[in-house]
């Protein structure tokens, strides 16, 4: 009798662990089939056609035979376009890949995104990144210090953010403008919190020169206009191989902005959107980002990254900047840099 009970218990346990999985597989197969039937995905993003993004889109199209209409816009344009379209009852987009704070703002200001359906590959996401009710982490954009290797001696290479406050760098620092929204202010806000208020005050005394052209800044460093650039997004230096520049990750860590995926309200192709998110969180897709010096949210991808990309894929992070603190940080930056 006892044996029978044990056997039944084992069967019950087996059933409890296997049936939902196969049911899940079956239901996921349904999602894939429905997505293929939809045949199309409209993706709003801020990648501006970056090669790793295009590689992921292409592999999705090839794997599932679903065409992707990718609309690349800058942050403010993207948000306003989604808001306007939805206000006008034009539900054209399926998925967006935007920053965490933009999603927070969308949730705060209106009803633009819908609750996230279950994405099996979300189980791959490594801590501290988490899936929320409305969004899943896509990738992370950390910042370090860029130096000109011809102008900065090995002994002078900054290893800490505090090293930038050394008087020898006065007037020699280039930075993305810290006053408006953007990389500069994100870094300013995170370092204010992690390095203490004194850090930003001392940095301001160094009179860093501000620029508004983030894509040209690394080249200005390479040409020798300035020896140090404060706000270097890792990935934006990945295509400068051959130039006399090097990205340094300070020991305290790299301030970062997180990019998330969300499904837009009344998405016309909801299954394709769900399938794309699943694909984006696969190891192969995340590896494409890791090798482009973006920090992947899947550990296996960070482990598999190319040798030159590995330090960036596994960088220690500090942050992120909080949406609620943003107005105060922008005001403080304007005060320190009048």
């Amino acid at each position, binding site marked *: 009798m006892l044996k029978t009970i044990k056997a039944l218990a084992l069967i019950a346990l087996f059933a409890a662990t296997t049936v939902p999985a196969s049911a899940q597989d079956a239901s996921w197969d349904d999602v894939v089939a429905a997505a293929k039937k939809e045949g199309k995905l409209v993706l709003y993003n801020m990648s501006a056609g970056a090669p790793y993004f295009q590689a992921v889109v292409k592999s999705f199209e090839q794997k599932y035979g679903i065409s992707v209409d990718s609309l690349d816009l800058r942050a*403010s344009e993207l*948000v*306003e376009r989604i808001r306007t*379209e939805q206000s006008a009852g034009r539900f054209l987009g399926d998925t967006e890949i935007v920053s965490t704070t933009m999603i927070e703002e969308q949730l705060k200001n209106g009803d633009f995104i819908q609750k996230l359906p279950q994405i099996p590959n979300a189980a791959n996401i490594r801590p501290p990144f988490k899936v929320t009710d409305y969004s899943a982490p896509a990738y992370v954009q950390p910042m370090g210090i860029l130096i000109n290797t011809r102008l900065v001696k090995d002994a002078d290479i900054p290893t800490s953010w505090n090293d930038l406050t050394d008087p020898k760098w006065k007037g020699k620092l280039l930075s993305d403008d810290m006053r408006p929204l953007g990389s500069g202010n994100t870094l300013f806000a995170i370092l204010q919190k992690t390095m203490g208020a004194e850090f930003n005050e001392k940095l301001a005394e160094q009179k860093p020169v501000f620029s508004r052209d983030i894509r040209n800044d690394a*080249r200005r460093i390479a040409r020798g206009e300035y020896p140090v650039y404060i706000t270097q997004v890792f990935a934006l230096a990945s*295509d400068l191989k051959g130039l006399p520049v090097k990205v340094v990750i300070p020991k305290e860590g790299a301030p970062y902005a997180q990019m998330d995926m969300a499904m837009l309200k009344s998405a016309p192709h909801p299954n394709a959107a769900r399938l794309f998110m699943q694909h984006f969180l696969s190891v192969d897709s995340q590896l494409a980002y890791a090798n482009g010096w973006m920090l992947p949210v899947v550990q296996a991808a960070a482990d598999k990254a190319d040798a030159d990309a590995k330090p960036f894929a596994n960088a220690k992070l500090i942050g992120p900047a909080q949406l609620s603190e943003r107005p105060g940080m922008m005001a403080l930056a304007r005060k320190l840099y009048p």
Partner: protein
Amino acid sequence: MTLSADNRVSELVTAPSRSRAAARWPWSGGTPAGRFIGLTLLALLLAFLTVYPLSMLLYGSLHSTPPGAAGVFNLDGYRDIFTQRNLLVLLNTVGISLAKTVPSVFLAVFLAWILARTDTPFRGSLEVLVTLPFFIPPILTAMAWGMLGNPQVGLLNQLYQGITGSTTSPINVYSYGGVIWHMTQYAVPFLFLLIVDAFRAMDPSLEEAARMCGATRLRTFFTVTLKLMLPALTGATILSFMRGIENFESPLFFGSPANIHVITTDIYDSINQRSPPQYQYATAISFVIMALMFLIILLQWGLLRGRSFQTVTGKGYSPAVMKLGKWRWATFAFCVLFFVITVVLPVGQLLIGSFFKFFGFYEWDMLTLDHYREVFGSGEFWHGFRNTMLLGFMGATLTMGLGGIVAYISVRTRWRGRRLIDAMAWLPWMMPGIVLGVGFLWGFALLPHAIPIYGTIWALLLAYISLGTPLSVRVMSSAYAQLSFDLEECSRVHGASWLQTMQRIMIALVWPSFAVGWVLVFFGIMRELSASVLLYSVDSEVLSVVLLKLWANGNAEQVSVIGLLMMAMVIVFRWVQLRVIRKWVGAL
């Protein structure tokens, strides 16, 4: 049939008869009912293209949230404008625009006079070459001048230091001077293009008359040549001043590092760099700017009212040019110098850089043709190129057609409502482009879904027509203002129908201006980004969006390749315009 040259010189000051012919010739407007219907349709079209997107922006300026979002009506946006800081920013903006417009006008007038009214050698080729800077994407010249004129390692400073042995850097593009210089580089060819045909179309007998009456060359230039150019000159100057107020790239790239703020960077920040975007503030400040610009236009109307500027008359004249003797080589050298500084220096950087892996690193092992291969092998580039060509040809032709009609009614008739139509056509240029783009987005997206504009290529076409109309109207107005009414009268007296008169006289004689305007509008469409990026869809991606994406991905060298391609197109277009079309017009 026509006034003598002397009469016409004196008429410059006294004649009040701007639209006599139209008043006398009822055929010029058809029946009153037909005229009313035509005018109403035109007004409705202009209202949709210009007033409708602006009305969306007006709503945005008076409402706490953008259209479609819950909020309340208030004046917070306008209240926020009136701060001491904004006053300083406004003065700064006006000062910078004036500082670039005034020397640009002098330079452009001088160049136009040299190339249209003198026997300077190679003036045909020079005329194409001096206009090239206008057609280069500003982001490229900003990068090139950043490399040439930065105080640390700028090539010009290094050259100066190499020659003089000094350690100082006299050139710093990250300054007021840099901002003004970068703007001037675009303003001179723009002004030149707008006024050169007015110089060329002028009957030299007017100048000869002044000379025969004892006026010196200088006095003749100022009292006859320049005054007859007033409509073209004031219109072009105002457009240039407005472009200066609305200029965005120069202060952003060269002003921001030096803490130089202008209205457009303020507007840009309030939309793109604030959380959440401050549309109410951005639109409110844009309407204040618009009001200021409208005052300037009223000033121009006041300046030109009651005067006649007809220099193309029925009387035959030889388009003779002034013989400068040995001085023609001095004028030639001046044009070459202008070309070298504004084109060869920056474009040379772009051209050389396009053959190396990275700009500024000119080493043998970095020589490559990859950037050309990547651009010409890119499906996205060709897709954007095709769309842009389609929109450019259609947009420029329709815009110039619309501009021609508006200008004709405004300049050559006394119809009621003509002032309103003229004013409506001005509107898009009074609103900074980065804000107007948002107006189009709001306007087109909120149309009933049955009107298939939003998300299609037609949204871009309509926006381009709207953005180009002020320029087309100004170009065509200047051209029509120069045509004597006796030409139309003469045609009619000889039995030509209204249509024949239009075709053989009114269109044929303004064709050179139409062609210049067409090229300007066409390349304006090629470069337009603010509206394009908000209105494009995957199927209607245009070249400016492709350029933006390439730039954002760090492919400055590929952007240069496309910039050089655009310049090559300019040369071809201008060559066609100057050689083929004029030959055809001459045969009419």
